[in-house]
């Protein structure tokens, strides 16, 4: 943002102060994530920068914590990863299907009490997790699903659907309903119309909702903490346990992997969003 050269000096000062403030805030946002990277390659068992690391001595860096994460004896990460993936997979499928179908209904202009239904369906996202966790725990214990994968998957479907509902409803706001009417007039039945016409058009929204649901489940710790037995441990639970006891470099190695994963998800979500906006002809 170059300033024209006739800009008075005090505006100039103000402008550069403003840019400096912005830089500092961006730094505050993003820098904490990057502090984890180098420390996860630490050769020693400390989680602060050793003298060797600051001097960029290759001896001070190693992959031992990654090895420990993957092959370490008695390490819980294998089981945790397996559980996390299984749970997040089924929770994503469940919330995507339920959420997309509900969003189709919610964005129909014929839907009665739209605001009320929307408020109820979004509520799991708003209610503090500790309350959702408590309530869901009582329920799952009553129906005998506590300490089961099914119970955790169901509770993650509850927590994931609001995101799908929001993203898919947002995609449907610019949706041209004449294309579905055209399909119907050409003799297509509603299911066929949905699969062949509506779904391809709203797919970016559905996928980004699914990504949200996946991340929600993959990152969720409070509800799992109430519901999970030893067999249902997940990555967040292991991190939680580890962080409560002692911050170890192995946890930082896991955290680094998770950051890489979230970067990939972010890129996918962004590309999808842009594609969807291009398709719907929204110019930003």
């Amino acid at each position, binding site marked *: *943002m170059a300033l024209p050269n006739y800009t008075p000096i005090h*505006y100039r000062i103000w402008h550069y102060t*403003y840019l400096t*403030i912005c830089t500092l*805030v*961006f730094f505050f*946002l*993003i820098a904490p*994530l990057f*502090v*984890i990277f180098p420390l996860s390659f630490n050769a020693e068992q400390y*989680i*602060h*920068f050793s003298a060797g690391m600051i001097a960029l001595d290759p001896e001070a860096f190693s992959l031992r914590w990654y090895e420990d994460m993957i092959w370490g004896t008695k390490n819980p990460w294998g089981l945790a990863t397996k559980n996390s993936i299984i749970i997040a997979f089924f929770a994503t499928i469940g919330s995507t299907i*339920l959420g997309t*179908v*509900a969003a*189709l*209904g919610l964005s*129909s202009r*014929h839907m009665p009490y739209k*605001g009320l*239904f929307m408020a*109820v*369906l979004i*509520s*799991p996202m*708003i*209610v*503090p997790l*500790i*309350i*959702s*966790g*408590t*309530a*869901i*725990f*009582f*329920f799952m214990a*009553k129906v005998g699903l506590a300490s089961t994968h099914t119970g955790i998957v169901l*509770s993650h479907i509850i927590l994931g659907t609001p995101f799908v509902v*929001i993203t898919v*409803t*947002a995609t449907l706001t610019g949706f041209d309903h004449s294309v579905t009417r055209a399909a119907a007039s050409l003799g297509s039945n509603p299911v066929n119309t949905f699969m062949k016409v509506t779904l391809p058009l709203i797919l970016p929204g559905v996928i980004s909702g699914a990504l949200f649901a996946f*991340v929600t489940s993959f*990152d969720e710790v*409070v509800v799992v*903490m109430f519901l999970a037995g030893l067999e249902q441990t997940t990555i967040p639970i292991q*991190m*939680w346990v580890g*962080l409560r006891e002692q*911050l170890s470099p192995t946890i*930082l190695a896991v*955290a680094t992997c*998770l950051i890489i994963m*979230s*970067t990939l998800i*972010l890129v996918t979500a*962004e590309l999808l969003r842009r594609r969807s906006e291009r398709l719907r002809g929204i110019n930003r």
Partner: protein
Amino acid sequence: MSTKKIIYSTDGLPLEVSLRKAERKNKLKAALLVGPLFVFILITYLFPIADMLFRSVDDRMITKLLPKTFIELEKWDGKALPEENVYEALYRDFYPLAIAKESGKLFQRLNYEKSGFSSGLKRTNRKIKNFEEGNFKEQFIEAHKIWNNVEYWVALKNTAPNFSYAKYLKGLDLKLNQDREIIRIEEDRRIHIILWLRTIKVAFWVTIFCFILSYPIAHLLATLPMKYSNLLMICVLLPFWTSLLVRTSSWMVLLQQQGPINDFIVMIGLVSDDSRPELMYNVVGTFVAMTQILLPFMVLPLYSVMKTISPSLMRAGKSLGGTPFVAFRKIYFPLTIPGIGAGSLLVFILAIGYYITPALVGGASGSLISNTIAYHMKSSLDWAFASALGAMLLTGVMVIYWLYNKIVGIDNIKLG
């Protein structure tokens, strides 16, 4: 003569009827689509929350454990010591419990009603096994002096109602005294009021900090050309997509005593090496970490509002003689108020129920009401009290949610 001309649709029905029918069909179709998720949420989420609210007032435990006693106590006037029949009923209720070792729940619950109950009951619990038939009143009084004290009997009778709001009073550091009046508990035990105030204070200040920090960057993002703003947007979205635990652990790395921030403070000579300040396990850690974690939730709504403000408005303001500051204050800022409202309410709602971050970096002085709920759920196992605290928190959140819905509209929540 004016006859209404009736228009018929192709299927021979009057158009009006046909339209209404079609409208009804469309409504039903839309409702059927929403139906599955709504029923699912109703059964697995709304009912459980209602059940939790019920648990917080449910107080039938003692009446269930001592049914015969309460039947007899109903006739008792509460002035002099009860008659033999009440003592006999108590024996008939208590004896099986003592034999089956199930009387433990009684001690805690009744001791909460009146202190001294626990020791008295425990002693009675041991002695009751040797009681002989007949003359129970004497034997009870001999077992422990509480049974010779009308006050304890009154306290026992006071637990008779099936529902009680005692847990809610406890959550506000209040209790009922002997005469069922609400009084404050002893000064040194008033911990919950402090927690509520701290929770509100933290949520409030985190919201303010988030606002101050996000306003300039949202403005920058909204005014920069697309190719730069898209790149900078990643800085906002990456933390948003990253696991909460990862972000919290990065703060634990940063804030620890040997961590980079402390290293930096020592390096620039603010403090000496052996008096490094404690930045974590107190309210400072909670503030800093929560502000960074919740920042994207403020930036995104602000950004989406600022994006819609045309730059020509500011130019018009300036061309009419306003300084940039006046133009900002009179034109730009008022236009961003919807975004400020949306972001602030969202951040406040999320902050007030925060659990993970305060639990990990907050220590004792930085823990919030959610942490207390978790403590009563997992450690003290006072589920009714946890439910009551949850219900109180939920009420607060629902009020803000309602406000949010009024002001912003729930369908305007933006994600990414």
